[in-house]
C-alpha cells in the first residue's frame, strides 16, 4: 500500500454556475429563515427561489448557446478532476429539472386555497392535535423552509445527472433524497398520514442508498477507481463474468431503480405519494424521476456500457413488470393520489423501454443513439407537465377546506367546473398517450427508439401495456364527467385558487398541448443536445 499524494482538483466554475446558483440560493434561503422578520419572510423566500431558479435556467441556456458557438471549449470537458461532467445532455436535463422545479416552487406558494396559509404545516415539530399545533395555526404561522429544502433537493438532482464518478453519484443521490424525506412529512392536514409517509420513505430510501453504496464499493473493488471512464475501460478488458462486477451492477441497479420507482422496488411510491403534501408529491414524482433516469442513463450507458448484454435483458424484464403491475394495480384503486402514484409507476416502466432499447450504448457511434436519449428526455418533459398539472388539480378538489382524494367523491366535478375539468381531461389524456397531447408524442418517440434499437418485442409489450394504462385514466374521466354526485359528497367542490396555482395550471396546460400539437422545435432541440453525446464517452 503506497498512499499517493493528492492533487488539487481544477474547478471550472463557469460550467458549474447553474448548479452553484441553486445551491447558493438554497443556503441563502436558510439564512433568510433565520434573519428575516416573520412578516416579509414568506414573500422573500418565494422571490428568492423563483429568481434563483430563473437565473439557473438562464445560465444553463447561456452555457448552451456559448457551447454551441464554440465559446466554451472544450464543451464536453470533465471538471472537478473528471468527477463531474457538463455536456449538452446534462445541460438539457438541468434546464428541464430547473424548469419543473420552478413550476413546483410556484405551486408551493399557493395560499388562497388554505385561507391565507400554505399546504404545509405551520409547525412541523408540534405533535398533531396538541395545543402547540393549534396555537401555531391560530397565530397564522407559515412554513417557508420548504423552499430552501426544494432547492437543496434540486441541487442534488443537478449533481446526480452530471455525475461522472460513482461517489459523486452517491452524494448527489443523498442530497436529492434527504430534503425530500423531510418535505414528505410537512402536510398541513392529515399529519399522521404525512408523518408515516415520511418514515416509510426515509427507512426504505436509506436502505436503498445503503444497497446502492454497497454496489458502488463492489464496482470500486472491481475497477480500482470511481471514475466512469476507468470503470468502463475495466469492463471492456474483462470477460464480463467477474463476480465483483456482477454484484456491483446488480446492487447499483437496485438503488437507481428504487429512486425511479420501478417494480419490484416500487412499494414506497403509492404510500409516500398519498401521504406527502400534494405539491411535494408533484415535485418528487416529476423531478426525482427525471434526475434518477438521467443518472441511470449515464451510469449504464457510459460506465457499464460494456455490460449491456447482461443488463439489457434484466432491465427489459423490470420494464415489462413495472408497466404491467403499475397499470393493473392502478385499475382498482379508490384514491386519486394513489391512482396517479401507480400511473407514475407505469410511466417509469415506459421510460425504461427506450433505456433498454438503445443498443448503441457501447460505441456511441451508430445511428439511432441520439434518437434514444432525445426521446427519453422528451417523454420526461411531457410526463412532467401532465403529472404536475394533474396533481395541481388534485389540490383544488376540496370539501370543507380539505383535499378530497376519494375517487367516488369526484363524481361530476368536471361538469360543474368546466375549466378545471377540461384541464384535468387534457392532463389525463396526455398521461394516457392520446394523440394531440405531449404524452402521445413522447410515447411514440420512446417506443420508436426502442424499436430501432432492436427491442421491437419490448416496444410491442409496452404498447399493449399502454393500452391497459389508458383504462386508468378513462376511469377517472368517466367519474369526473359522466357520473352524478352522490348525495353525501354534495359539498365536494372545486376551490378557486390564487394566482400561483393558476400560473402552474396554465404552464402545464400549454406545455401538454404544445408538446402534442407542435413537438418539432422541442424534439429538435433535445435531438441536438443528445447528438453531442459522442465525445462524452471519453
Amino acid at each position, binding site marked *: 500500500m503506497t498512499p499517493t499524494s493528492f492533487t488539487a482538483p481544477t474547478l471550472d466554475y463557469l460550467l458549474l454556475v447553474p448548479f452553484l446558483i441553486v445551491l447558493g440560493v438554497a443556503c441563502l434561503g436558510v439564512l433568510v429563515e433565520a434573519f428575516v422578520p416573520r412578516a416579509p419572510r414568506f414573500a422573500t423566500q418565494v422571490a428568492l427561489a423563483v429568481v434563483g431558479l430563473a437565473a439557473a435556467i438562464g445560465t444553463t441556456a447561456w452555457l448552451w448557446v456559448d457551447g454551441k458557438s464554440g465559446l466554451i471549449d472544450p464543451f464536453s470537458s470533465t471538471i472537478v478532476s473528471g468527477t463531474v461532467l457538463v455536456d449538452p445532455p446534462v445541460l438539457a436535463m438541468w434546464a428541464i429539472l430547473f424548469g419543473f422545479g420552478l413550476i413546483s416552487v410556484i405551486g408551493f406558494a399557493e395560499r388562497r386555497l388554505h385561507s391565507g396559509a400554505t399546504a404545509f404545516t405551520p409547525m412541523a415539530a408540534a405533535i398533531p392535535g396538541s395545543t402547540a399545533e393549534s396555537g401555531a395555526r391560530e397565530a397564522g404561522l407559515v412554513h417557508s423552509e420548504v423552499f430552501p429544502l426544494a432547492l437543496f433537493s434540486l441541487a442534488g438532482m443537478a449533481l446526480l445527472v452530471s455525475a461522472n464518478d460513482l*461517489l459523486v453519484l452517491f452524494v448527489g443521490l443523498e442530497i436529492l433524497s434527504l430534503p425530500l424525506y*423531510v418535505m414528505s412529512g410537512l402536510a398541513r392536514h392529515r399529519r399522521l398520514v404525512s408523518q408515516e409517509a415520511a418514515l416509510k420513505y426515509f427507512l426504505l430510501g*436509506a436502505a436503498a442508498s445503503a444497497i446502492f453504496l*454497497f454496489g*458502488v464499493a463492489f464496482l470500486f473493488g472491481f475497477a480500482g477507481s470511481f471514475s466512469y471512464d476507468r470503470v468502463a475501460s475495466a469492463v471492456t478488458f474483462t470477460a464480463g463474468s467477474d463476480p465483483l462486477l456482477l454484484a456491483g451492477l446488480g446492487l447499483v441497479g437496485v438503488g437507481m431503480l428504487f429512486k425511479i420507482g420501478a417494480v419490484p422496488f416500487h412499494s414506497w411510491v403509492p404510500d409516500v405519494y398519498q401521504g406527502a403534501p400534494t405539491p411535494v408529491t408533484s415535485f418528487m414524482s416529476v423531478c426525482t424521476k427525471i434526475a434518477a433516469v438521467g443518472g441511470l442513463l449515464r451510469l449504464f450507458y457510459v460506465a457499464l456500457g460494456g455490460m449491456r448484454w447482461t443488463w439489457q435483458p434484466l432491465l427489459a424484464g423490470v420494464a415489462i413488470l413495472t408497466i404491467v403491475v403499475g397499470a393493473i394495480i392502478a385499475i382498482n384503486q379508490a384514491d386519486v393520489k394513489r391512482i396517479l402514484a401507480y400511473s407514475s409507476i407505469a410511466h417509469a416502466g415506459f421510460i425504461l423501454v427506450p433505456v433498454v432499447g438503445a443498443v448503441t450504448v457501447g460505441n456511441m457511434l451508430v445511428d439511432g443513439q441520439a434518437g434514444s436519449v432525445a426521446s427519453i428526455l422528451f417523454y420526461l418533459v411531457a410526463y412532467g407537465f401532465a403529472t404536475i398539472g394533474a396533481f395541481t388539480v388534485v389540490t383544488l378538489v376540496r370539501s370543507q377546506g380539505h383535499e378530497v382524494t376519494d375517487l367516488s367523491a369526484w363524481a361530476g366535478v368536471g361538469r360543474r367546473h368546466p375549466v378545471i375539468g377540461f384541464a384535468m381531461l387534457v392532463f389525463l389524456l396526455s398521461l394516457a398517450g392520446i394523440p394531440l397531447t405531449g404524452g402521445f408524442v413522447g410515447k411514440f418517440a420512446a417506443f420508436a427508439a426502442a424499436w430501432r434499437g432492436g427491442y421491437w418485442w419490448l416496444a410491442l409489450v409496452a404498447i399493449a401495456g399502454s393500452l391497459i394504462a389508458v383504462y386508468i385514466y378513462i376511469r377517472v374521466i368517466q367519474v369526473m364527467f359522466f357520473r352524478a354526485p352522490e348525495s353525501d359528497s354534495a359539498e365536494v367542490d372545486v376551490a378557486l385558487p390564487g394566482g400561483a396555482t393558476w400560473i402552474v395550471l396554465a404552464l402545464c396546460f400549454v406545455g401538454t398541448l404544445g408538446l402534442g400539437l407542435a413537438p418539432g422545435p422541442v424534439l429538435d432541440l433535445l435531438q441536438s443536445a443528445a447528438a453531442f453525446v459522442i465525445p462524452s464517452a471519453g
Partner: protein
Amino acid sequence: MTSLYAILAVILFTIGLVGFLVRRNALVIFMCVELMLNAANLLFVAFSSHWGILDGQVAAFFVMVVAAAEVVIGLSIIVMISRSRRSTSVDNEIVLKG
C-alpha cells in the same frame, strides 16, 4: 487478505439487510441501515488497500458525512413519529396500506 475483509463486509451487510427486513422497531431498522453503510465503508477501505490508492478511504469519509446527515434527518422523523404515536413500531403505522 482483501477477500477476508470482503467476506466480513458481506456478512455485516447481510446481517443489516436481514435485520432491516425482519425487525419491527423503527430505531432498530435504522441501526440496521447504519450497519449496511458501515459494511460498505469496510469494503471501501479494504479495496483501497488492495489497489494501493487512497480513493476508497476518502470515500469512507464521504459516507460518514452522508450517514451523519442521514442520522439527523432520520432521528428527527422517528422522534416526531414516536411523540405523536407513543411508539416507534412500524407495525403501528397502519394508516397507509401498501
